[in-house]
């Protein structure tokens, strides 16, 4: 392995933008960046358990191709290593989706379109990442592969279900990762690991060739340690895809060039009521810090938000059960028992109640859209608490002790329920970071990212560097 340490680029902690600039400008080779990333992954991953597979061979070949390319100066992600939650198809690997059962599946014939688009922009796939089984999880624990570990405290959870994505980015193994978010699985690990995450509008990014969970709620999106990196990655993945029926027929709307436009004139409010109830002090401190930085003085209530969370819960349980019902019938013992019991229960919910949840969904969407006539963005906590200890089973919210696994997502679930775009931004509290959601109207990722960038420039949010 050619371990060339580039003179000006610390590739473990450099941003994707810095790496791409150095590779495009010839200060460092993509091959050296990728070699360094693979070496660090080999050294650090045994502690973080973020990866379930390294793709060294293809990564090195891809890096060599970038170095040989005459177009590398035009590649916005030239030589940038990235990794994906193991529910994305990677050519030649079985798509695990965190399960034991899928290990027997045939290897994927093609990469997912989001991998293809990132690689077309010069990025280099270096591996697949750990996740909660079939994405039905907020902890980042996995009974088959072991838990993803939080780089800020290895005894604590990363959050899930995109736990490996959170750990790999926060731990400096890769500057970019992809994950999925059905009810909060990008925003929860972003919060607990202290990094930035983008859950775009439902239908913005193609989900083709990724293993689904709840088709009517599933989103894919990126993690990074800076807002600019999120934006570059997001821009590279945009655009319609007829192979995902939910993917909108909208042209790409690039945001990178708009990041520095600032927040002047934007109307920003804090989501109160439900979002302050049950939150631990640190979650409220983080929201207040962001609100003060943005001069967001008004507090609003999202109508019936608790019912939105309930409706998302019901649709998740039942659509998830529908997806897995044959596996439940034939392979029930091969599931994580916690996932199996939830899915079996989901199969027993009367359809009449599920339809009520879908009817409510449209009503609630309309109320939320009314709110965005008055406000450009809403601020809310991403999680009720900082990272719990691995193995913790319960959490006390508003004085009531309840199961941890489904309840880490109480603040994310009612937002993804209607597909609103969210940037999760990290507030670097001690000893552990925690995230805040910047929520905007459908298709206004640009505003959420601009606000995130402004907060970053003010020093109100940052991805803290762990001691590893």
């Amino acid at each position: 392995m050619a371990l060339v340490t580039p003179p000006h680029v610390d590739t473990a902690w450099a941003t994707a933008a810095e790496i791409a600039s150095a590779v495009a400008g010839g200060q460092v080779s993509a091959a050296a960046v990728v070699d360094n990333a693979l070496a660090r992954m080999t050294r650090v991953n045994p502690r973080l358990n973020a990866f379930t597979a390294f793709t060294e061979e293809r990564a090195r070949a891809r890096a060599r191709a970038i170095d040989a390319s005459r177009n590398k100066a035009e590649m916005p992600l030239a030589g940038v290593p990235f990794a994906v939650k193991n529910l994305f198809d990677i050519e030649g690997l079985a798509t695990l989706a965190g399960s034991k059962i899928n290990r027997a599946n045939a290897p994927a014939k093609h990469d997912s379109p989001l991998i293809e688009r990132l690689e077309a922009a010069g990025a280099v796939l270096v591996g697949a990442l750990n996740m909660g089984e079939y994405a039905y999880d907020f902890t980042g624990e996995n009974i088959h592969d072991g838990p993803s570990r939080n780089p800020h405290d290895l005894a604590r959870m990363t959050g899930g279900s995109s736990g490996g994505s959170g750990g790999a980015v926060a731990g400096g193994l890769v500057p970019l990762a992809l994950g999925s978010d059905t009810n909060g699985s990008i925003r929860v690990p972003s919060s607990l690991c202290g990094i930035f995450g983008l859950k775009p509008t439902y239908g913005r990014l193609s989900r083709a060739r990724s293993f689904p969970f709840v088709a009517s709620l599933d989103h894919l999106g990126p993690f990074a340690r800076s807002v600019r990196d999120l934006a570059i990655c997001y821009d590279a993945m945009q655009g319609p895809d007829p192979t995902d029926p939910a993917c909108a027929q909208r042209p790409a709307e690039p945001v990178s060039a708009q990041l520095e436009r600032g927040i002047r004139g934007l109307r920003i409010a804090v989501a109160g009521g439900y979002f302050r109830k049950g939150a631990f002090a640190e979650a409220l401190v983080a929201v207040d810090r962001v609100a003060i930085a943005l001069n967001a003085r008004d507090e609003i209530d999202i109508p019936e938000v608790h019912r939105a969370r309930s409706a998302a819960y019901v649709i998740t349980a039942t659509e998830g059960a529908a997806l897995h019902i044959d596996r439940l019938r034939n392979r029930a013992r091969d599931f994580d028992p916690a996932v199996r019991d939830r899915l079996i229960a989901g199969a027993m919910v009367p359809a009449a109640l599920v339809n009520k949840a879908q009817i409510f969904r449209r009503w609630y969407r309309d109320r939320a859209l009314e709110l965005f006539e008055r406000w450009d963005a809403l601020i809310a906590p991403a999680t009720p608490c900082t990272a719990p200890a691995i193995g913790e089973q319960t959490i006390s919210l508003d004085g009531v002790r309840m199961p941890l696994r489904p309840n880490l997502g109480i603040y994310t679930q009612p937002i993804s329920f209607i597909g609103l775009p969210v940037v999760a931004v990290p507030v670097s509290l001690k000893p552990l970071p925690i995230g805040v959601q910047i929520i905007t109207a459908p298709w206004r990722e640009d505003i959420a990212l601009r606000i995130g960038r402004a907060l970053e420039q003010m020093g109100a949010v940052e991805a803290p560097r762990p001691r590893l």
Partner: protein
Amino acid sequence: MIDKPLEEFVEAAAAALGLPLEPEWKAAVAANLDVTLKHANTVAGFRLPDDAEPAPVFKA
């Protein structure tokens, strides 16, 4: 503590739907169903007009 009728429902539903249900799974499945039904009833308790349309394929 889960009501006996719900545990009985779980048992009957598993048989009717052809779902496996080991005796040691029953309590956890019933507990999960109990939570899910409470959420479902939270939603169903919100009155909407008969012509309110569902959003099975959501468009933002």
